Structure formats: structure tokens, C-alpha cells
């Protein structure tokens, strides 16, 4: 997942370095004297903003104008603890109010149409760019080696009928913005809005960016990108750490809050399709997983153990499913899953749930035998499919089987629907 940053990081670490003027700001302070002094210096008016990753321009409701230190302190406390579009703010900060005669939108991003960076400008700033009419915005491709030239910026502004008196200043600021983008390994950066004061000054008044962590330029000395509090479950957090622990084999999960099927899925594309099919068929998958990428034994063992530890106790059915692998060794991955299952039973006692398996790929037969032998040993009911049965067909079947198993369990007072190990 690409790393995202918001205005506060821009204000703290980036804007000054690249010569982009911004409003003055005050963070992490409920010191009445400091706030009062700041308000006086700023003309008596400021905004309280949450430092949050809000996606689209959804922060508006939580951005509050304040005119006194008392009001500022109250709002700083309130805003810092108020969720914005499901995101929890890292903190709230006070920022100078900039009066504006005009607002402007700018963004730089890699454009899949041009297969190059592109620069977008509109003189209708402060709103989502999708809402701006096509004729009121301009997007041009940028030569990745030459970068954005001032004359290009100037031409765009002229095309948008920007007042001539602002053309030079804004063109130069766009170059600074490009420099920031290209020097820090960003995938996308947006300044929206620039507020242009009646006196002719321009200030970047909101910012968001996506950082490409694969780009070495994103490793900026002395700058640690902030981690935003999120609503991750313990399971997701543990799996994130485990995923980051090695580059061999993916171990990414996203909790879906399902309560029926524990899915151990393989392959980015296939795992998405299977999960969608499970949901559509009422299989209520517990999470979205993608464990492909030819994980070595230890990696897969660790992944499966973590999934079982967090979820197996609540699951109605264990689904191990993937397409026909090109590289992933099925015997290695299946043996690891089998061993994780045995170790779960050794630790927690017998389990009673059907297991549905579907897979194809190198050393498939050995892998299936390995899992089958384990399931026989654990006396778990199972159905195993080969690559000739479509994955989505298996997923649909698993969803129906899980629902039937739950129904039988509910009918059965003892809550047992499978054979007990001898």
C-alpha cells in the first residue's frame, strides 16, 4: 500500500525546503499564551484542522474557524478526537487564516494515459477536481527527464485566463511544486487550494501526497513519515508486521469482519475474485488474503499459524484456494499449512469443520497428498479439487457448504457436525 501524507507533514518538513509559501501554523499546543500570541500575529483569525488521511476533500466538516484562544483550545481538543470519514486524526493543529481573492488547484501525478507524469491546474481551487468542468482545467504531460518548465506553467495559466499580474509568481511556485514532487519520490501530490490574497501573495493551503516507497528518493534523511492511527485489528497489525518481515511470499490480509469462512488464498488477482465470489454467495469470508509469491516453508508456516491463531476458532469452514500457480511450489505451501493445522490442534485441541481445497501448479500432487494425509489424521471432513474445477465454482460451493454446516451446527444441540478424532 503506498504511503500517504497530508498537509501537516508538508508544513512541518517539506514546504520550506522547496520554497513553497504556506500559512503559519502551530501544532501540539494548548498553551493559551502561545495561541493568543499567534492569533494576534495572524490577524485574529485561524483554522483548526485535523491531521488525518481523509481521502477526498472530506475534511471540510472538521475544519473550524476560530477567533479566540479559548475557542481554539476547545476546538483543538474536539477536532483531534473526532473521526473524519472513518479516519482517526493523528493530532489537530492551528493554522493561519489566509484571505483570498482567488483559489487555484494544482496536482502532479503519474498519468496512465500519458505513461508519464502530468500536471493539472485549475483556477477553481478548493473543490474536488472531478467536480470542475473539463474546460476549466488543463492537464499536460511532463517530460520525466526535463521536468516542468516555467514557460509550460505560464502557458497553462494563460490558457486558463489567469490574471497576468499573477502569472510569473504562480509559474515559479509550480516549478517549486514539481521540484518537491520529483525530489521526494512521490506518485501523486496535490496542493488544493492555493489561496491568492488580495495583496497578490500565494499560499499553499492544503496538501496531500502519495509516496512511492519503491523510490529511493522517498527516504529523506531526518524525515520519518508519520504513522496515522487506523482502525486496524490486532490480526491485521500482526500480519502487517509479519508481511514486512520478509520480501519472500506475500502475507497481506485485510479484515472483512466475516464470520463463516477462513480463506487461505493465493494470488493477487485470484484471491480478489474468490473473495468477491464468497461474498456474493453468502460465504462471509473473514478476511481478504493473498499468500502467493512462492513463499518458502517457514514463511507459509508462520502465515498459516497466525491466521489460524486469530481466526480458526471462530470459523465454520477452512478454505484453501488458489488458481494454477506458475511459480509457487504447492507441496511446500501445503505442507506448511498442514503443519500449522497440526500445531493448532496440538495446542488448542480438536477442531470440527469442513475443509475445502482447490489448487493447481508445480508439485500439486505431492502437496495435495500432504494435506489430505493431515486432514485424515485430524479426522476433518474435506473436499479437494484440482485445477480443472474453476476457483470461483469452488468458492461458491464452499460458501454453500459453510452455510449448511452452520445450519446443522445450530440444529445440533451439542454443536458438532463432524467426526471427532478417535
Amino acid at each position, binding site marked *: 500500500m503506498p504511503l500517504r501524507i497530508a498537509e501537516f507533514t508538508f508544513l512541518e518538513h517539506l514546504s520550506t525546503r522547496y520554497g513553497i509559501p504556506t500559512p503559519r501554523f502551530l501544532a501540539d499546543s494548548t498553551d493559551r499564551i502561545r495561541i493568543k500570541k499567534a492569533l494576534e500575529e495572524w490577524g485574529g483569525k485561524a483554522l483548526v484542522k485535523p491531521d488525518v488521511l481523509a481521502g477526498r476533500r472530506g475534511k471540510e466538516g472538521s475544519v473550524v474557524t476560530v477567533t479566540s484562544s479559548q475557542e481554539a483550545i476547545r476546538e483543538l481538543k474536539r477536532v483531534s478526537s473526532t473521526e473524519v470519514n472513518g479516519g482517526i486524526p493523528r493530532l489537530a493543529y492551528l493554522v493561519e487564516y489566509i484571505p483570498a481573492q482567488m483559489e487555484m488547484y494544482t496536482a502532479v501525478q503519474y498519468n*496512465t494515459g500519458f505513461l508519464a507524469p502530468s500536471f493539472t491546474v485549475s483556477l477553481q481551487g478548493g473543490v474536488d477536481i472531478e467536480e470542475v468542468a473539463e474546460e476549466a482545467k488543463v492537464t499536460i504531460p511532463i517530460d520525466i527527464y526535463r521536468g516542468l518548465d516555467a514557460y509550460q506553467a505560464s502557458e497553462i495559466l494563460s490558457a486558463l485566463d489567469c490574471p497576468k499580474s499573477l502569472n510569473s509568481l504562480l509559474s515559479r511556485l509550480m516549478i517549486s511544486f514539481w521540484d518537491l514532487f520529483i525530489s521526494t519520490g512521490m506518485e501523486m501530490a496535490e496542493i488544493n487550494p492555493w489561496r491568492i490574497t488580495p495583496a497578490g501573495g500565494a499560499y499553499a493551503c492544503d496538501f496531500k501526497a502519495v509516496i512511492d516507497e519503491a523510490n529511493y*528518493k522517498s527516504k529523506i534523511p531526518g524525515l520519518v513519515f508519520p504513522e496515522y492511527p487506523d482502525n486496524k485489528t490486532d490480526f491485521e497489525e500482526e500480519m502487517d508486521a509479519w508481511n514486512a518481515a520478509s520480501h519472500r511470499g506475500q502475507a497481506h490480509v485485510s479484515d472483512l469482519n466475516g464470520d463463516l469462512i477462513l480463506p487461505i488464498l493465493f494470488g493477487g488477482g485470484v484471491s480478489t475474485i474468490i473473495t468477491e465470489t464468497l461474498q456474493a454467495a453468502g460465504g462471509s469470508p473473514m478476511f481478504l488474503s493473498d499468500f502467493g509469491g512462492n513463499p518458502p516453508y517457514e514463511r507459509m508456516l508462520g502465515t498459516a499459524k497466525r491466521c489460524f491463531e486469530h481466526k480458526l476458532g471462530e470459523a465454520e469452514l477452512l478454505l484453501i484456494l488458489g488458481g494454477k500457480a506458475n511459480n509457487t511450489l504447492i507441496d511446500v505451501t501445503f505442507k506448511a499449512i498442514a503443519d500449522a493445522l497440526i500445531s493448532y490442534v496440538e495446542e488448542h485441541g480438536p477442531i470440527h469443520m469442513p475443509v475445502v481445497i482447490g489448487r493447481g501448479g508445480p508439485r500439486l500432487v505431492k502437496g495435495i*497428498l500432504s494435506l489430505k494425509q493431515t486432514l485424515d489424521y485430524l479426522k476433518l*471432513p*474435506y473436499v479437494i479439487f484440482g485445477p480443472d474445477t474453476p476457483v470461483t*465454482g469452488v468458492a461458491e460451493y464452499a460458501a454453500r457448504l459453510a452455510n449448511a454446516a452452520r445450519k446443522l451446527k445450530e440444529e445440533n444441540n451439542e454443536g458438532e457436525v463432524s467426526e471427532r478424532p478417535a
Partner: protein
Amino acid sequence: MRAKCLRDLLKQNDRIAVSNITGREASKVSYVSQKYSPNIIGGWALGKGGEQVESPCGAIPVFATFEELLRSTPKSRHPNKVIVYSPPEAVYGEVKEVARYGKDSVETVFIITEHISIEVTAKIHQICSQVNIDVVGCNTLGMINTHEKVRVGAVGGDTPEETFRPGSATIISNSGNMVSTIATYILTAGIGTSFGISTGKDRLILFPLKDFLVLAEKDDHTKIIVLYVEPGGTYEHEAIELMRKNGFSKPIVVYVAGEIAERCKVSLGHAGSVVEGEKSSARAKKEAFDSYFGIPPFKPEKRYHKTEELKASLAQGIRVTALHHIPDAVTLVVNTLGIRKDIGRTRPLRLNPWFVHLGELGKRLPAELALFPGVILEPYAEQLKAQEQTFVRSFIRQPMRNASHASANDGKIPRIFGYSLTDIMEKRSFTAALILYWTGELPRDAFEERVAELTLVASLTNGPGTISAQGAKLSASAGNTPNTAMISTLSAIGLVHGGNGSRAVEFLLDSFVSAEVEDPYAPFADVQEIAVKAAADFKKRKMAAKEAGFEYRRIPCLGHPVFRTDPVNFDPREQVIYGYIMRAGRTNVFLEFYHLLAQALKDNGSTKNVLAVNLDAAIASVWLGICWRKLKEKQMSVNRAVDIPFIAFALGRAAGGSGEYLDHNDFGTEMDMRVPVSECRTLTKEKQLPQ
């Protein structure tokens, strides 16, 4: 775009060069690709110039750089296709080199590497466009041209011919895995594949869908296109716009995945799947296709009537909402439009369980859920039959009183791990049979068999004075039978004498725990580093123990009581084994490690001279090499790998002890092993029992 038709991207007689060809994935995939179609003319890898990569069609030469590859190859053989397998940080440099030196011959570059930064991807696009080289990727799995039986990358896995039969469909997919999956599915509709293409799944797809469609339009084999699409980018919108503008004569069946990303706000496995703008969402892509096709998504239960309206819509295509609807949708399209099927008799796509064991649950399930085992297709059925005979899963314990994986006898033929003993007797050696019996697998080649045999021969004897030989002689002297003499030999070996090989295996496993040795018989770059680290660890341990006044743990199998006085010492028996390995042009990474370790211990001052690597080390290294693959794949327990060298020595030495017994029995005198009283010393003063 340089290519004028799809086969310009990949065709028979293309000359392919592979970057980082000595890497794990590149060498493995190249091996299979050469078997399918021998078109790789060479590879390059920094610092690996002069090496070779094995393939079924002969060794592939490895050069240090792409420029050297060009210099060393006749112009007529210069590569026109390049596959890049280099690590992400090296890809930019590799592509720049290809663009600089290869612009006269290279037409297409396939970039397999993932995790390349988007900035580098954009730069690659620009420099390659400037020299008119097409780029497929980054993060593509590759491409296959089925009619001309040629592929690049790992499309189709180890058996591309199994999945890809020549036919009418071009499959274009954001996911590499789905290329093979869809090819398998459409076979059940009687449709084979003309081209299977993995576009790559990074945010920037450098050969976009619209370009593939332009080429597919001109391909005579392609009658229908099957697309697998994920969120991210606006490639599909651009393609649809182009088709609307210029017209497109071939029907498309499309599956758009990834709406879950929008609904559940979760990230997908693919970098390109990050949903950013509304247009790049799965929902927008679905709507765009539906609008272009002019027909609602395919419903398998619906009866479609062959009206002109339906024909007109299906001529554009149709979207499916479930992946397994693709064969039915393809059937509808080909039947309605009169496209000829490629394969006559086909099996419909349906649930075909290979194994079912639902037990008590099965009895209570509705009939449609209580499945019965179906038919296991070839080649799996045959593989299964073969595997079931020999399959060992050693880690599940069970009562073994009347069961064995290692041997069998059905009253007619005794077997070792499923192989007929009589067949082995007729066709294989004793050593091959032993390897089978101990590891569950026959030796992989004559080299392995011979080197194992050398360890057995070397274990026979080290002269009559060894304590194991003394055991046999003592037994003969006492008038025992041969079996007792052999037992005496065996009882006189232990962890100190003879069994030290087991400790050596444990030590080797500790030392190589995090090293990724794939083939112990191939050179391994990090072995020197591992040896130096082991020597440093030993030195630290020794110093600490000395300071604390404790005895320190020795490194097993280094040093020899006889061969120890020269500056550099050798055990002659070990040298025969080592020499044989060298002469065979192979290596044994563990034995190599031992030699480097002996030197490293001298270099860091732990030892005064270079200790001899003794026979036990050689036995341990050889047998660990034999066990390595199964051990690494967890198909063998560590205990077994530790025991085998001990057993190998014990077997050789028991045979040697028998020789001593026979000799002693013929020529010795009764009780001649008795030590005369005059030679015995007392170390205790005489004492009197108290009255």
C-alpha cells in the same frame, strides 16, 4: 509502438536474451522455456561472465554485461527480445544498457521484475520509446504465442503445452496467474489460445490494452478476446474509446475484478489496483464495457435467442460477473457469431472433486452439497498413482508395527519405497539402492551415486588399530560368530569415533540456516562469508570459554590425530572424495565450506595451522548434499539427515570389521587379544578388606 502485429512481440525464431539469468527465478524459468521452445541465445549477470546456465537444449552462455553479450555474439544472432529479471534497483541500468547498445536489434523488452519505482517505470517508457523499443510490463509474467509454440517468462508454469493449446482466443490479463487459469477454462468451451499475455500489474502498464487490441485486430488466429481486468488506470476507457472511434471487429469477453476494493476500502495484492480516480475503479470499468457492448452482463441461466440485435451486441462482446461463466459466455459468443471451435470434444467446466471425505457431515448435508469423487485428469492421475506408492509424510506419527514407507512385500515382489527390488537388482547398484532406502528417492545422477559410494568405501577401514577394527578382532579372538564380530565393530563406534558426521550435519545445518542454497552441487556465492562467520563465532566462543575456565565446544570433523603437523593438513581419504567432486566439474557447498572454514580458523588465529578436513566431514557433506533438496522442502526430517552419515559410516565400517574378523579368525591364535598381565599397570594401591 514498434510491433505491427501480435506475433511481432513474440514469434518462433526470436532470439531472446535474459538479464540476471543466473538468478533463482530466471534460471528456473529459462530452463522450462528452453524445453518448450529453445530461443534463449544467452544471458547476462554482473560478475557472472563466463558461467553457464543449464538447459535441456544445452548450456546457455552467461556474459558479464549486455554489451559483452552483443560483442561475443555474431550480429545475425543478436537478440531481438530481452527479458529483464534483475532486482528492482538494477532494472533501470539494465534497460539503459539495452537501449544504448541494443537499439539496432532489440524490438521488445519484457520486464518481469516487480517493485520498480513508478519514476523509473516512466523513465524506462521514455528511453525505450525514443529508440523504438516496445516494453511489456513492468511486473509482467510474460507472454505465450501458442501457434508458434514459444513463450517468454513463466506463463503456463512448468508445463505450458498442457494449458495452452493452439486456438482462437487471445487472453490479455492484468494478472499473470489468470492468463493460465482462463486458458484452462476456455478449453472446456472448445476454444484454444492464440496469445496469452500478462500485461503486468504496476500502476503504469507500459504496453497498454489499446495497443494490444490494435495488434490483436490484425492477428489472423485471433477470433475472440478474453480480458481479465483489475482496478487502476484508465487503460480500458482508452481502449474502448479507440474501439468506438476506429471500430473493432473481434468480440471481447471480459471479467472485471476488484470491486471489493471500493466496497470494503481495502488494498489489493496488486500495486496497480489502488483505486484513485473514479474512472480507474472496477465499477467505472464495468459500466464502460457494458455501455460499449450494449448488452447486460452474461447470465448463465438465461436463454439467449439468436436475434440480429444479440448478434450485433455480441460482435462487440459481453461481460461476465463470475469467472467460471467465461466458458459459457465464450460458447454463446462463438455459437452466435459462427466462430469455429478449435477443439471438438470437450468436457464442461463443473465441480470435479478429486478427493471427498465428508464423513458424518456428508450424511446430513443436502444432496447437492454431498459431493462424490470425480475423475482425476491426466497427467495428475498417473502422478498420483506413482506418488501414492512412494509418498512419505514423516511428521505424522502413527502405529508403525505393521507399516512401512521404506519397504513392502505383497507376497510376490519386495519393494523399496515402491520400487521393485528385483528391478533394482537388475538395473541399479547397491549404492543407488541404499540411497533410495535411506532417503526415499533414487540418486539424481551418476555423480551423486558415485560420490556416495566413495564415502562407503572410505569408511571400510583406517587400519587394524582403530577401535572399531579392534572390536571385531576382540570378538574373533574370543571365538565369536561373524554377526557378533560385526556387532562388536558397531558397538565400538560412537559419537566420538565414526559418528562425528552426525554432529557435522548439525553444525552445517546451523551454519547454513539462513543461506538460500538451492543446489548444493552448484557454486554458492556466500559460502566464504558463512565460513568466515563460523570461524569468528568459534573464536569468540573459545575466548569466552577460556576466560571462564570452561571447556569449549570444538568444531566437529576438523583435524585428524595423524595428519596434523603440516602448515596445511589433509586427510587423504577426504582428498579422494574432494578430488572426485572437482574432477566432475561440480562442487559440494558443505565440503567447500569446511575447507574455507579450516583456512578461516587459521587466518583469525584460532588454530596454528590449517587443520585437515577429515573423512567424517566429507561423509557428512556428501550425504547432506544428497538429502538437501528433501530437507529444504520439509520432505525429510532433520533427524534423518543427521542420522544418515552416521549410518553410512557404520555400514562401511561393519563391512570392514567383518574383513578384520575373517582375517583374525584364519590367522590369529586363541585369546590372542588378551593383554598379558605383565603389560597391565595398576593405578591403585593394594588394600585389605577390613576384618
